[in-house]
């Protein structure tokens, strides 16, 4: 272990010798500062409730338990709560008026009763490939399901009780505000002629909940970005942007550049002889150096992500540690690239070759990932005519290459599930399409890393240095 730590320390010294590391740390601080300068101010209750109830066209069957939603827009309903008031403890009280938006477009059904009926019944028929010809094309069948609106007779609608209506509203508010059903109370007020309805609604802890719209300011209230920014959705966008875009591309490219010099410097004439003459095997030497690069980047990544997490949690008012899980995810993405960079360095001894080939590979993985996503969607929707061999090619490349893009998708899914209220998350579609599995994504990626390192070690052991 002494040798292992010596090489880790050496990698650290090498990395901090240049200015790039300080630029990266400086950028991390700047990003954290910008994020920390964001201010969320809850929107006034009438406006916020109007935004929330506008989403009620999406209904979750099975009394809100269904992962898929049913759109009930064919029977439009207007919800209004202009009298909404919020207390200092975040509790919001209002009278909710429900009325037909306009004449029902289909068979003049009572839109509100129909929505409650849909909510109260088990998820209806799941319809695969609803927009195509009923068959997935181009190889394996992919899942894309929606729940069809149920058929409802006049008797069915008449059977909807006041409790069902209250339950429906509690479920909907909980799903879209991001509070528990216990935090919501809804009671029908008598005296309003159907098909209009009136309810007294109370939402506890609402204004600090993740679905509550906020007014967003940046640079310590110097710049206003307007209202209607839902808290969780905004946090998700910031986190996903940092990890998926700045983190996934910018930081990884810089990390690849910094670490691309580690192995060629070690293999330099006059340097490698000194190391090989020490009592350490070549495989050990290379693997330790590889791990040294990973540890170094993990320190920077952890520093940046943790700093941003602290800043955004402090500003958003909720401390969900799931964002910290992006540290190992980003590190795995870097490990994939660094394994290739190491292999190129051992074969060419050139840092420039390592950088160029690794970045080209990164771009290639992105393209394959994008193509795979598009082809999977195209299997269902058939928006473009694609020959079968193209599906086979993309599927094969995707199967054997590390799952760089999949890591990005899975990370986004994780952040959606974490930050968005359950209703928002479900309507974003994450429950409708197949996501790659973490096991397969990590497994294939690790296998690629092992193959790259094995090739590198073989080459280093084989050559006369």
């Amino acid at each position, binding site marked *: 272990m002494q040798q292992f730590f010596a090489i880790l320390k050496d990698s650290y010294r090498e990395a901090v010798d240049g200015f790039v590391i300080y630029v990266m740390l400086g950028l991390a601080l700047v990003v954290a500062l910008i994020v920390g300068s964001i201010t969320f101010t809850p929107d006034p209750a009438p406006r916020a409730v109007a935004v929330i109830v506008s989403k009620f066209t999406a209904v979750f069957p099975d009394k809100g338990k269904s992962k898929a939603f049913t759109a009930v827009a064919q029977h439009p309903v207007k919800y209004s709560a202009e009298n909404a008031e919020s207390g200092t403890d975040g509790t919001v009280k209002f009278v909710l008026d429900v009325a037909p938006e306009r004449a029902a477009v289909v068979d003049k059904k009572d839109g509100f009763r129909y929505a409650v009926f849909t909510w109260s019944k088990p998820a209806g028929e799941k319809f695969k490939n609803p927009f195509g010809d009923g068959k997935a094309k181009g190889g394996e069948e992919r899942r894309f399901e929606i729940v069809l609106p149920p058929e409802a007779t006049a008797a069915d609608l008449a059977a909807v009780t006041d409790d069902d209506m209250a339950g429906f509203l509690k479920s909907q508010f909980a799903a879209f505000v991001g509070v528990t059903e216990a935090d919501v109370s809804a009671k029908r007020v008598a005296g309003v002629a159907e098909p209009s309805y009136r309810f007294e609604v109370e939402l506890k802890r609402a204004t600090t909940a993740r679905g509550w719209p906020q007014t967003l300011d940046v640079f310590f209230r110097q710049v206003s970005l307007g209202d209607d920014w839902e808290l969780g959705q905004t946090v998700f966008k910031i986190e996903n942007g940092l990890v998926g875009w700045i983190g996934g591309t910018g930081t990884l490219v810089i990390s690849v550049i910094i670490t691309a010099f580690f192995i060629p410097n070690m293999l330099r004439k*006059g340097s490698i*002889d*000194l190391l*090989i*003459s020490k*009592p350490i095997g070549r495989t050990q030497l290379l693997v330790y150096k590889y791990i040294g690069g990973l540890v170094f980047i993990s320190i920077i990544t952890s520093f940046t992500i943790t700093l941003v997490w602290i800043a955004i949690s402090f500003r958003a008012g909720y401390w969900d540690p799931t964002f910290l899980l992006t540290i190992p995810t980003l590190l795995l993405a870097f490990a994939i690239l660094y394994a290739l960079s190491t292999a190129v360095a051992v074969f060419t001894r050139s840092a420039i070759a390592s950088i160029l080939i690794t970045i080209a590979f990164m771009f290639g993985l992105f393209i394959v990932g994008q193509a795979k996503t598009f082809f999977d969607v195209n299997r269902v929707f058939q928006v473009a005519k694609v020959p079968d061999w193209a599906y086979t090619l993309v599927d094969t490349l995707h199967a054997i290459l590390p799952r760089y893009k999949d890591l990005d998708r899975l990370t986004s899914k994780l952040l959606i599930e974490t930050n968005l209220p359950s209703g928002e998350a479900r309507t974003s579609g994450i429950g409708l399409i197949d996501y790659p599995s973490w096991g397969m994504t990590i497994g294939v990626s690790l296998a690629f890393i092992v193959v790259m390192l094995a090739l590198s070690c073989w080459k280093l052991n084989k*050559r*006369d*240095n």
Partner: protein
Amino acid sequence: MSVIETADLRKRYGPIEALKGVSLRVEKGQIYGLLGQNGAGKTTLIKVLLGIVKLTDGRASLLDAPAGAVEVRRRVGYLPEDHAFPGYHTGYSLMDYYGALYGVPAAERAKKIPDTLELVGIAGRMHSKIKTYSKGMKQRLGIAQALMHDPELIILDEPTDGVDPMGRKEIRDLMGQLKAKGHTIFLNSHLLGEVELICDRVAILHKGVVVREGTIDELTKTKGTYVLGLMSGQTFPADAVAQLGFPVRPLPDTAGHFEVTLVEGKTIEPVMKLLAERGLTVVHIVEKKQSLEDVFMKTVESAEPGVDRKQRRRGARPVGGEN
């Protein structure tokens, strides 16, 4: 116990045979010098011993273990020629890094590093970045890193390269001290005078073959050649000396001096007796000596230059270092 032993050692880089059956034996406590032109195979031999390059054929052992074995390298210190230390290290941190790779415990490193750097004369700059060191300082640091773990065998490839004359003497003295402590030193150097001063045994490697090997005395031993000079006005009896069976020749650019070479089994005594009988007074008599440089030059002067790196690259991958 032999510290280094090779038998019919061969190394081939593609079409180039860098070592053609080298057999050597270095005993414990010796300072052993390896001489040769560029491309003679000196560095290749060292690299084979350390496992930096793999031998093609033959046998090589180091401290009774197969050459290149990982564990045996713990007992060897090595200064390569053309070493390149990472510039981001200080002298101290580099020693700490290499010491850790050698398995020296941290507490021991903390004590030994300043001591060793003091020994090679750069302790005052040990916390400066290596990129600020002169070539001579880097060379001294290289020697220090080869010594700090107290190895049984120290292999030095051109240790005085880039070092000033004072520094060279200090390094020679240091090698003497190490020898006195029982260390074995395997020295590869172009500086023949230096090798002659400190080595117990020397091998001359030429085009991958050991062409001479022995102690300094054995190598510099002449057949017995004397330079004689008589009193002014006297004539040297060259014919008479030749009739005694001794090859004799006048030395140009001297005041009537003659060179007399002894023949097998004879001393200079018959010549001196002849001169005395003729009443001649010898005012100058010197036994002519041969330097190691003479031996080296005679050994290799008629040979073609060795294989240089560029030629070898065409046939194989680069190996680094002069050979």
